C-alpha cells in the first residue's frame, strides 16, 4: 500500500488544524452557520436528522488494519459503535458531535486518513476497482493512478468551487466494479497497440435526477498525460458548467448540452494549451507505483487440499466459497468478499467490533490489505486458499460470513429518511424486508446474480437507476411510496433502468420483487441472469405480473 511520507502527513495535519480553528470560531459565534456550513462541508461534516454525519474518505477504497481499527475506535468512542460504508467506498459516522470533530480528524490524520473533499462542489474521493492488484483481469493497477489523482485533486486551488460535485472512478479490468460509466469521469485502463498504457476516458455519466451513461470522449489517453487531461476537462467544466440551477450543474448536463463530440473538442483545445508541463513527472508516478508493488506472494499450487477437504466437510464453507470468493491472479490465492448484507441488517453497516475482526483477519491472512467496494462490502484481496477455512470460521463467528455476494440479498441502500436530511422515504427497511423475503440461500443461489439498488430520493445515492431492479422512494401526499425500475446496470454493460409502472406502497415492495423474480425464473433461458432475461423479454411480462397481482 501507499505509505504517507512526511509531506503527506503534514498536509493532513495542517488541514485538521485549520478545521479545529474553524470549529472554535463557530462555537464562539465569530462565524454564522451560513458561513460555517460550506466550511464544515469541505471537511465532510453534514448536519442530518439526528446528529452530525462525518464522512471519512477512504481513498480508492483501500485500508490497512491500523486504519480500520482507528475507524472502529472512532465508532466506539464518538458514535454508537458502528460505521456505514458508502457507495463511494467511504465510511460515514451518523452520530457525531461537532465539538468532537477536531479530535476525530486528528485521530484520522494520525493514521493517514481524513475527511477532505468528501462533500462540497469539489473533486471527491477517487474510487477504484476493489480487486486492484489482485485480479488477473487488470491491465494495470488503478491504485497508482488513483493515488496520483488523490494528490493532484487535494485542495486544488482552481477546482475547489466547481459548479457541482465531481466524482472519478478508475478500473483496470474490463469487468467494471466501479460503476465508471455513471461517474463524472470514468477511466478505463487500456493497453495501446504499441504496449503503451492509457485510459479510455468517459465523461458525463451520472445518476440523480437525470441519469446518463457517459459517452467516451477519448478512446486512448496515454497514461502519463492523465493529469493535464483531467485539468482540461475540469477547466472546461468549471468555466462552462451551469451554476444557475443545482440540478443542472453536474458535468453530465454540460456534456449532454454540447454533445460529447463538441465537449471533447473543447477539452482537446484546452489540453493542447495546457501542454505536458502540467503532468506528473514519471519519477513521481514511479515512486507511487513502487508503493503498491510491495505485496509479497508465495509460490503456491492452484489447488489447496486443506481448502478442498474443508469444503467437502462443511456445506456452509462450500456455500461461502461459491459466492464470496473470486479468482486471484496468483496460484493458490483468492480474493475474499466480506458481505455487509447480513439478512435483516442495514446494508453497508459494520460494527466497531466487526471492523476490529476484519482488521485482525487482514493481518493474519490478508497481507494487511482491506478494500471497500462501491456495493458496500469489504474485500480481503490476497488470501491463501489454505487459509480460507480458518478465515471463514472467524468471519462466521463475527456475523460476517453471509454468503450472498452478487445475489439478490446483496443490495445497495442509501441511509434514506432514517438519517438523511434530503431523503423523501426510507430505504433501509425496504432492503430489510426484501432480504427477509429471500433469506433462503438455496433460492437466492437459484436466482443468481441480481442487483437491487435502493435510493430514498431522486439524488440516487443508492444507485437505483443502475440496479437490475431499482427502487426509488418517493413521498406521495405524506406517505412513502416506491417506484420500481428494471434493466439498469452499473457495470461494463451500463444502462439506465426503465420504470415498471405506478409506485407501490412500502409493504407491497418485497412481494413485488418476489413476483418479478418468479417471472424471471419462469422466462429465463439457460444461464441468463435476471438482467439478460429482462433485456430479451422486455418489460411486458414483468409489468403484467406485478400489476395483475396488484389488482
Amino acid at each position: 500500500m501507499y505509505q504517507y511520507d512526511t509531506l503527506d502527513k503534514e498536509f493532513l495535519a495542517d488541514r485538521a488544524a485549520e478545521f479545529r480553528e474553524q470549529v472554535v470560531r463557530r462555537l464562539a459565534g465569530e462565524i454564522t452557520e451560513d458561513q460555517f456550513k460550506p466550511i464544515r462541508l469541505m471537511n465532510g461534516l453534514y448536519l442530518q436528522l439526528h446528529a452530525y454525519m462525518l464522512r471519512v474518505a477512504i481513498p480508492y477504497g483501500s485500508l490497512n488494519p491500523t486504519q480500520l481499527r482507528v475507524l472502529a475506535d472512532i465508532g466506539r468512542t464518538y458514535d454508537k459503535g458502528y460505521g456505514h460504508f458508502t457507495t463511494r467506498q467511504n465510511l460515514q459516522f451518523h452520530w457525531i458531535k461537532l465539538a468532537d470533530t477536531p479530535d476525530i480528524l486528528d485521530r484520522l490524520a494520525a493514521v493517514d486518513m481524513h475527511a477532505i473533499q468528501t462533500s462540497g462542489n469539489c473533486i471527491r474521493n477517487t474510487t477504484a476497482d476493489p480487486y486492484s492488484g489482485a485480479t488477473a483481469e487488470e491491465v494495470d493497477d488503478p491504485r497508482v493512478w488513483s493515488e496520483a489523482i488523490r494528490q493532484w485533486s487535494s485542495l486544488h486551488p482552481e477546482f475547489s468551487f466547481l459548479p457541482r460535485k465531481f466524482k472519478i472512478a478508475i478500473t483496470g479490468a474490463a469487468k467494471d466494479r466501479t460503476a465508471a460509466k455513471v461517474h463524472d469521469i470514468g477511466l478505463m485502463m487500456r493497453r495501446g497497440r504499441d504496449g503503451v498504457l492509457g485510459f479510455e476516458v468517459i465523461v458525463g455519466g451520472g445518476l440523480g435526477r437525470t441519469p446518463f451513461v457517459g459517452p467516451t470522449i477519448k478512446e486512448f489517453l496515454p497514461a502519463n498525460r492523465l493529469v493535464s487531461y483531467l485539468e482540461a476537462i475540469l477547466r472546461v467544466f468549471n468555466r462552462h458548467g451551469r451554476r444557475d440551477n443545482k440540478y443542472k450543474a453536474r458535468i453530465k448536463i454540460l456534456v449532454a448540452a454540447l454533445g460529447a463530440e463538441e465537449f471533447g473538442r473543447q477539452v482537446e483545445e484546452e489540453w493542447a494549451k495546457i501542454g505536458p508541463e502540467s503532468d506528473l513527472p514519471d519519477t513521481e508516478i514511479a515512486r507511487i507505483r513502487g508503493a503498491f508493488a510491495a505485496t509479497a506472494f508465495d509460490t503456491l499450487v492452484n489447488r489447496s487440499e486443506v481448502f478442498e477437504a474443508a469444503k467437502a466437510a462443511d456445506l456452509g464453507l462450500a456455500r461461502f466459497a461459491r459466492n464470496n470468493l473470486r479468482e486471484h491472479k496468483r496460484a493458490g490465492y483468492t480474493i475474499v468478499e466480506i458481505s455487509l448484507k447480513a439478512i435483516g441488517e442495514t446494508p453497508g453497516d459494520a460494527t466497531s467490533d466487526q471492523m476490529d475482526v476484519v482488521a485482525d483477519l487482514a493481518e493474519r491472512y490478508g497481507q494487511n490489505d482491506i478494500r471497500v467496494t462501491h456495493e458496500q462490502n469489504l474485500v480481503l484481496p490476497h488470501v491463501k486458499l489454505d487459509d480460507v477455512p480458518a478465515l471463514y470460521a472467524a468471519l462466521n463467528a463475527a456475523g460476517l460470513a453471509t454468503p450472498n455476494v452478487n445475489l439478490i440479498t446483496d443490495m445497495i441502500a442509501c441511509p434514506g429518511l432514517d438519517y438523511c436530511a434530503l431523503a423523501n422515504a426510507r430505504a433501509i427497511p425496504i432492503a430489510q424486508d426484501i432480504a427477509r423475503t429471500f433469506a433462503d440461500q438455496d433460492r437466492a443461489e437459484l436466482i443468481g446474480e441480481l442487483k437491487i439498488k435502493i435510493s430514498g430520493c431522486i439524488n440516487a445515492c443508492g444507485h437505483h437507476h443502475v440496479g437490475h431492479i431499482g427502487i426509488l422512494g418517493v413521498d406521495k401526499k405524506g406517505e412513502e411510496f416506491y417506484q420500481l425500475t428494471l434493466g439498469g446496470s452499473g457495470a461494463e454493460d451500463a444502462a439506465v433502468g426503465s420504470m415498471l409502472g405506478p409506485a407501490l406502497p412500502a409493504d407491497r415492495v418485497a412481494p413485488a420483487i418476489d413476483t418479478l423474480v418468479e417471472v424471471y425464473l419462469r422466462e429465463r433461458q439457460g444461464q441468463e441472469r435476471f438482467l439478460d432475461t429482462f433485456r430479451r423479454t422486455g418489460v411486458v411480462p414483468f409489468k403484467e405480473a406485478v400489476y395483475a397481482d396488484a389488482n
Partner: protein
Amino acid sequence: MPTRIKLTDGQFSLVEDPYTHVSDDEDLVRGDLIISLTRFQSEGERLLAEGRSVGVRLEPAEEVEVLAYDLPRIALVAVAFPKFNDGRAYTAARLLRERYGFTGEVRAVGDVLREQAGFMVRVGFDAFEPADGSTPEQWAHTAHRQRHVYQRAADRRAPAFAERE
C-alpha cells in the same frame, strides 16, 4: 482613501487603494479607475490616452480571452466573486497569470472571504477586498496554513512531487 489587502513578496499588508470602482451607471471620476469590461471596451481607449491607470472588472461569465489584446495596457484586473463559491474566478486568475503572463494586479472583489485565501493566492491573486472584515494577519495565517501543496499553480510553489526530488 479606501484600502485593500495587498500581497507583495509573500507579505500581506493593508495599503491605500488609488483606484476608484465606477459602475456602469455612475459618472467617471478623476484618477485611476476600475470599470466594467463593457465600459472598458467603449471608453478604455480614451481613458488610457488620458494617461490614467485603468483596471477592468471581470464578471464570472466574461472570459479572460477577451482581454488578451489589452492586458499589456491595463494595470489591474478585478476578478469578481458574486458569491464566494463561484469558482470561475479561480480559472480566470490562473489563466491571466499562467497563460497570458499578466504581471499587473489581480484583485479579488465581491464575496471575498479569508477562508479562501490559500486558494486565491495559489491561482495568482495578489490583492483582496475582503467582504468579511478580515485582516492582513488573518489572510497571511490562512494562506500559509498548508506547508505543502500537491499541484503546480500560478504561485510557482513547489508541489509535493518536486519537494520530494
